[in-house]
């Protein structure tokens, strides 16, 4: 009896977990694509709507790895050479949020403008 209750409970948890992950996958979030080429972000400025969650797709076209980092956005992610990375940002208040490539901070600079 006990184990059956436990099993049902486990299934319920599983259903909740699965449905949340399905929701997050299919939710319509704006997608913004950014490329890293020669340790530069292309484009280096992207504009996103305020109060909206946005999916950033960062393609690293350099053979070397880079770390996407932003103190203002509270984001940090290693992107290996010739790979892409998914980074969710927002919802954000209107303003300017700089980001940079931690491995090449002299050149790899960009900003997210929230309007």
């Amino acid at each position, binding site marked *: 009896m006990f184990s059956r209750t436990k099993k049902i409970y486990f299934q319920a948890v599983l259903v909740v977990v699965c449905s949340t992950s399905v929701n997050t996958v299919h939710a319509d979030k704006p997608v913004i694509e950014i490329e890293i080429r020669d340790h530069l972000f292309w484009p280096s400025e992207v504009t996103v709507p305020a109060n909206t*969650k946005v999916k950033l797709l960062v393609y690293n076209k350099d053979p*070397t790895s880079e*770390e996407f980092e932003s*103190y203002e956005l*509270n984001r940090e992610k*290693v992107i*290996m050479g010739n790979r892409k*990375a*998914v980074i969710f940002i927002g919802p954000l208040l209107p303003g300017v949020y700089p980001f940079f490539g931690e*491995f090449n901070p002299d050149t790899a600079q960009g900003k997210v403008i929230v309007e």
Partner: protein
Amino acid sequence: MLLTSVVIVLREVLEASLLISVLSALSGVLGIHRRWIGWSLLFGLAGAVGYSFGVAAISDWFDGVGQEVTSAVMQLLIFLLLLMFTFLVAQDPGKQRFSGKLIVLVMAATVSLGVTREGFEILVYLYGFSADLPRFITILSGSVIGACIGISIGALIYYLVSALSYRLSLIAGLGLLALVAAGMLSQAVLLLIQADWLPSQFPLWDSSGWLPESSVTGQLLYALIGYEATPTALQASFYFGGLLLLLIVAVFAVRSREQAS
């Protein structure tokens, strides 16, 4: 270039070095042999090499957020291990024939995971420059300097914690571990928000004008106690909840050890 690599590597080394120094100081205080440190460093380095080879594939897991999830799981594990460690210290020292071995395993697992996480970032960073020899040498020199500063700070903390009286060593050591653990928990929450597994919120407060995360102090505090200038309510509640939980157990630990000694 040189300065960037000093800061990057210092930040990573500092987190692991703090864990190692406090746990090894507490080993001494609790009368546990420190043989476990060498082994866990080796395990950690192997883990870091393995993770850096696998990261390209891991990143693609869970629709591109595998890296966040893996890192969050490691940080969550470090939090739980530190909680377990404090619990074991709180146990009656007279009855610890079993927990004596367990406590060594818990410390070794904590350090292995810490070194895996931080070592991975350093390896990926260094590997990125390995094709360009002159630049690589600059980066490597900066990294060595950063690592030496991080290890020195760790050594300083080790001697400070060890030099205190029995009671104060326990308080300082367990207190520092509680801060590190809370930082790990809040980082894990942040990573799961970044992965869109947890709901994201507006920041609870903004202390970036007062103490920016990009400043040297901000970066050091980030590495030591998980400082965030713009945390969300979810992060802050996990941070303070985790901190409170560990501190309560730590108070019991100090009391039970005091009575025993």
